[in-house]
């Protein structure tokens, strides 16, 4: 499969035609992500395992310069993992996640991303669990590294459709309470909630020793506000209606949304929380690659 063909198949519009989440995840992971040289989810260890020949893309800090001096060839030092990684996928399935401008809603997009991550993680013999929430936790699959656990995860991820409002702060507190061991928490949400409570909840997770990766799911409409005709915007999650001339209000809206994202990024950066914007118009592999690269960078 050529890279172009792969890219076309992995974009949201194409994958929307595939109903099974597992199949989607497999297509994404096996079609694109397996090409990565090393798992971004490797744990940290100082025990040398073996050498391997350098390929472009490897961190040159891991080049064994002694071997280079002897053989005039580049080799990379690889280390044994000390522990298995534990990943908790936390999926926002509130009403605001149902917005869709294309073939796939934000919720569908997030489910697919989550499933892909689960597939990837289980494929590395690491443990992964899933929580689906809106104003409270609606479904949960415990963290497990069993290969057969994927079915349970997918069932949980696909179970809920967004109907209620979001309360991420409350949910994160519940999640924090349930996680007894340190793990990587991957939060897939549009973050349309009270910002202070959201950041507070995430900080609590960080204080509890968890790594946190936020995949910010945004529809391209929400990012660009491309409407032209007079529109009556019907607020989801109990927001009122508003009649507006999109052309007149576009710039002001974009200013608001950008300020919101800028502020979040700043708070996340200050709290050691990784943030990745997941634009629903982009292909899954691109988003996953960026997220994984970002994750890999943060663990070195």
């Amino acid at each position: 499969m050529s890279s172009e063909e792969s890219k076309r198949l992995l974009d949201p519009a194409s994958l929307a035609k595939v109903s099974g989440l597992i199949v989607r995840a497999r297509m994404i992971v096996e079609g694109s992500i397996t090409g990565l040289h090393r798992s971004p989810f490797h744990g940290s260890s100082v025990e040398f395992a073996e050498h391997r020949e350098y390929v472009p893309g490897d961190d040159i800090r891991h080049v064994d310069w002694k071997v280079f001096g002897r053989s005039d060839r580049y080799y990379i030092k690889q280390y044994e993992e000390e522990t298995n990684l534990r990943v908790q996928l936390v999926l926002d399935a509130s009403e605001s996640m149902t917005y869709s401008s294309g073939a796939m809603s934000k919720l569908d997009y997030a489910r697919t991303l989550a499933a892909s991550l689960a597939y990837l993680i289980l494929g590395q013999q690491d443990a992964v669990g899933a929580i689906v929430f809106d104003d409270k936790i609606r479904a949960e699959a415990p963290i497990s590294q069993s290969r057969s656990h994927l079915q349970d995860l997918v069932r949980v991820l696909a179970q809920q459709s967004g109907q209620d409002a979001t309360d991420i702060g409350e949910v994160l507190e519940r999640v924090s309470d349930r996680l007894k061991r340190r793990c990587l928490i991957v939060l897939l949400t549009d973050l349309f909630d009270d910002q202070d409570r959201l950041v507070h909840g995430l900080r609590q997770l960080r204080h509890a020793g968890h790594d946190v990766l936020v995949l910010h799911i945004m529809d391209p409409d929400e990012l660009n506000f491309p409407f032209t005709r007079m529109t009556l915007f019907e607020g989801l999650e109990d927001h009122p209606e508003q009649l507006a001339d999109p052309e007149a209000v576009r710039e002001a809206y974009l200013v608001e949304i950008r300020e919101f994202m800028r502020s979040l990024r700043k708070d996340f950066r200050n709290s050691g929380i990784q943030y990745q914007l997941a634009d629903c118009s982009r292909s899954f592999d691109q988003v996953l690659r960026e997220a994984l690269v970002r994750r890999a960078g943060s663990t070195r």
Partner: protein
Amino acid sequence: MTFATPALLGFLSLGLIPIVIYLINRQRYRRRPWAAMEFLLRAMKRHQRRLRLENLLLLLLRTLAILLFVFAMARPTITTDALPVLGRQIRQEAVIIDASASTAARKTSRTTLEQARDQVRQLLLGLEPGDRTAMLVGGLPPAETPVVRAELVGDAGPPEILGDLEQLSSSWLSFEPEVVISEAVALATGEGGAWTFHLFSDMQRADWLTEDGSQIPAIREALERLEAAGADLVLHFVGPERPRNVTLSSLRPSTGLISADVPISFQVSIENRGTETVPGIEVEFLIDGAVQGSRRIVVDGGESRSLSFPHIFRMPGVARVEARLRSDDLDRDDARWFAAEVLEAVDVLVIDGGWDPVEESSESDWLVAALGDDAVGPTGVRLSPYRVEVVPEDRFLSADFQSPRVIVLADVSTLGEAESEKIEEFLQRGGGVMIFTGSRMSAETWKRNGWRNGEGWFPWEPGPAIVDPRRQIFYHWQIDSPEHPVLSYLSGFPEAGLGDVAIHGFRRPLSKVDEADVLMSLDDFEATPVLVQKSHGQGIVLVMGTGADREWSNFPITPAYVCFLHESLPWLVMHDGGGRNLALGQPWSRKISSEEYAPRINLLTPEGGAVPLALSESEDGMSFDLMVPGRWSPGVYELRFEEDTGETRSDAFSVNGRASEGALVFVDPEELATMYPSVMHRDDEISGLDQELSGIGSGDLWYPVFSTVLLLLIAETGLASFFGRARRRGE
């Protein structure tokens, strides 16, 4: 403010389009569920006031741009002192064209009017878009005169005026400068601003100056008003430089009364208006379209010739008489027409007051002798048109008053009530009555039944006879109305001896006589009126204060007596039909009796057209009035009365233009400019447009308004862009 195309102002309602679009857009919205509502609401709340202001401002600019665009398309023009600020100062150049008969004169192959049109067209096309112009035409009939209105010059000149210009043709009328200048005053006053009027004319001297070469007051006053209105008048001479024109200046019969079988002659006057002798001028004389005679004459430059064409009409009726010349440089004055009413014979009833024992003659002997015998002689002609019947006074009431056209009362003594009523009825029908006073006249009965304190038909209150029986004191009479048809011939013919008449007996009016009715008076101390005229009903009365015989004067034995009667009786007969020969534009009316009524009346024009006419019932309810509006082309017009039975009868009248129109004597424009200081002379050049324009004028707002529209559109685009940037910056 005026508009070149005011109809476009109706499109001002297009200014509502932006508002309507705005409102429609507010009503036609799409529904869309929206997740990021918090940010939208925040954006709305933060920028709502500003958005409203921006929307309002843009809406205002768009609306204003549309309104001003429509306004500009209507080509507004304003008169203001602030003109230079508003835009290009426009010119207001109007043209006045003389389209009178003399402009039909040919100069080479083109007429004066055609050359004037060329120059006017050149002037009009030299104007720039936005300038204003108008066209005034003088010398045309009212119905053919274009309406005077200011027109805005477009890219191809003023289209309506150019169209009217192409339609112009020379009339048969004269140019009246004061009329058209008054119209120019009205235009300049009504439209405002500084107007320059360019007059294109052949400057006929008779139109501009009196016979002695002085100003015509009406023209001077009109020019002064034009000057007061801030307008200039520039003269452009367009006449032929060396006119060669022969005018047939008059055609008239030798007598006012034309009767069948009575020889008559028509006098034709021909004038050479040029300076060179014109040989071989052929003059034709026609009756009812058939040539009766022709003469070939030579007329020296500036001279005139009279020709006489004798003719005997054999049948009564109205004959069409025409005299014409071979066409020359100006064909408008080469023919004249005359509608001649030919009577079978004129019945004259003389009521004789009685035998004069002194003279051993009857009162009417001299009178009958002077009127002549109507018998047809062996040559088939009659010497007199009058068929005279004399009845004594005692048969007054039994006499036939239906046939006579004229009744002469010769020293009738008693005027009873019945007699007076009979005379009055005769007058009401349009008859003519001549009265000679005398010694037998009973002043009391005439006063009571004829004068009736001024209410009767007799013109004055008769007084006692003033007579010098010894015939030693006598008076002469003096003519007070030399232009009157009765006296015009005698006043110009002293040899007839009217001034030699010695009067020693007369009746002096006891009442005051209106001066206008006094045709002659005595040279006595009181200037006693002796010949008085009075109209009564449709008829007319002539009263001679002395007798018809030799009892009170030697009048009957002077040649003037015959002349006087032969001038008076035609007047008494034709006094209401003398208007059969009219001037251009003069209406013609006739009383139609119930016996003459016809359901269909058509006016046949000289060009061959037929115009239906209608009768209106007269005030007395006994007859009808026929009114023919003035005609503006010369010739003989025939009235054809058609009965239901198919029978037809005709009447006719003639129309002639002013003979002086063919004079082609032009006044030097420089002289005219000197005579009337408020006019300027431009010698045959269209340089009026080069003149420096003076301060206050009219402004074409097209450019400033359209520029404003462009500025508004630029401002709208700029502001919309700026607002967009501002929003992006989050200001």
